[in-house]
């Protein structure tokens, strides 16, 4: 558990695109719609940088609702949020595999 005011670790920065609302992940150089591209903060200094970036990107009118999310790594080494809420946020509605980010991976799935 993160202490109050301590960013969770390891973590990624997640936000919604201001214009279209899509969930985005902070990368080394910008924002990506794919969680696999996310820059993972393994240490406090990087997490602090991500926090600063969250505030800056919000000010620059790029994104809304930016915050850090604790992750673990899956077998392929990709970041996966540890909390189910954020997992759903990175995938899409769980009863509709045809919608959200998960749809790209399972295009044939129906309702």
């Amino acid at each position, binding site marked *: 558990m993160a202490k109050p005011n301590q960013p969770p670790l390891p973590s990624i920065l997640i936000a*919604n695109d*201001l*214009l*279209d*609302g*899509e*969930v985005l992940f902070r990368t080394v150089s910008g924002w990506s719609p794919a969680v696999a591209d996310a820059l993972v903060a393994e240490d406090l200094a990087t997490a602090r940088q991500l926090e600063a970036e969250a505030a800056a990107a*919000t*000010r*620059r*009118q790029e994104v*809304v*609702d930016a915050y850090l999310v604790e992750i673990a790594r899956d077998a392929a080494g990709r970041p996966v949020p*540890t*909390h*189910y*809420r954020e997992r*759903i*946020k990175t995938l*899409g*509605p*769980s*009863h*509709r595999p045809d*919608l*959200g980010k998960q749809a790209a991976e399972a295009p044939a799935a129906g*309702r």
Partner: protein
Amino acid sequence: MYRYDEFDERFVRERVAQFRDQVARRLDGSLTEEEFKPLRLRNGVYLQLHAYMLRIAVPYGTLSGRQLRQLALIAERYDRGYGHFTTRQNIQFNWPKLRDVPAILDLLADVEMHCIQTSGNCIRNVTADHFAGVAADEVEDPRPTAELIRQWSTNHPEFCYLPRKFKVAVTGAEEDRAAIGVHDVGLRLLRHPETGALGYRVLVGGGLGRTPIVGKVVREFLPKAELLAYLEAVMRVYNAEGRRDNKYKARVKILVHELGEEEFARRVEAEFAQLDGPSINADPEEVARIAAYFAPPAYESLPARSARLEAAKATNPALAGFVTTNVFPHRVPGYAAVTVSLKLIGGAPGDATAEQMRAVADLAERYSFDELRVSHHQNLVLPHVRQDDLPAVFAALAAAGLATANVGLVTDIIACPGLDYCALATARSIPIAQSVAERFRDPVRQQEIGPLNIKISGCINACGHHHVGHIGILGLEKNGIENYQITLGGDASEKTALGERLGPGIAAEEVPEAIERLVEVYLAARGAGESFIDTTRRIGLEPFKAAFQSFARKEVQDAAA
């Protein structure tokens, strides 16, 4: 149906133009999110988990075919091909892009619709009995009252910044299908027992959410003409004395509770006595003008029983089953109201695709005087269908995949969007509804169990009305896992009751089996013709608790083993 006058039209168009400008200023950076958020919320735009969400008002749940068609167009052009009908008789789109919202609002304004007062601390969209104008037990159609309140409350300068949101529901019938007991204000049209004059019984201070409370009668009989002045008095007392220090204590139910209902009523009456009634109450001409929009359609005179329907039922058991569950008697001989269930087994409660919306719009235009309703049970209603036409309507619904015969039964589950969409959720609702519906999918068994309302919310805010479900399910988080609390004995009808918890929360996978155990207790104990809720009332909670707890305990032990 109510049609906009020039004032309504201009007001809505101006709001769209203002919002277009606000969005442009947001996008060019001149408005920050803090500045913009209240503006977008005032136009029904929320930020949810995966995207923005747009909530569109459907005043008192009444729509025309043309309006539903326009919603279908919006679903296709600007969303992902479907919409979600809510327990407030509204519709929500789950994937609109912020930049498209002004264009969507224009399309809505073209059909006299908007998103005003679907959010924020104002008087929200007024809801009403979905069988308004249909039910035989109705003294008067509640929609002219609802429309009057809509007009009075829209942009009312005094009530734009209330301590908290404010929800009003109206019914004109004995049987309460509008859940007036769990609204901030609930109105029931009735006749004075001695004079026969029309008026309202006024309930105040009902509500669900984290502090569920049943509304209290503060006025047993309010003459019809005095409605607005009385409501104004209620709003003034609330606006002046409702708590603004704590969001969770800001609803009028807390004020009524803290003051006590007598004292609250006394203050309202004192305020009411001081108000200049005639300057506030609606002009009788205006009341008549509004009422005229809701005049009954041009019914034909028909025999009470349709020979054509009877003959069709005799050869088509599926039609017969559908008529038993989804068809409601109409006050006019030869007619019926048809509920179109949006609770398909395997679907999400309240969701309808653009094609389904068009199919229902077609049917409304062809068979129901171009009128339809959204019910707070998240279904659609064709209110005025000739019984002779029921076989054709049934066939068309079946062709559109909309002939699910389960209205009021165990699979007609109310569920809020929950964590699959909602940013506030603590757990998912839709998959729970789906797993319970799947368990009870057999139509014969559903019929055998009879009326049973299951209601599911994905957090304490209770948009899924779980407190008033015969069986209520509340999704919470426990140790990083979704956990569901089960309540029993809630009732949204005129016998309003809040359900009681049966025991510890259980895991998602256990919910269908837990419901099964409760149904078993009922089936074993019921008397002839006795419904689930009646049995619950008669035998009390204990037998259900015992069955539930022995189940829940066993699950915990198995999990530990």
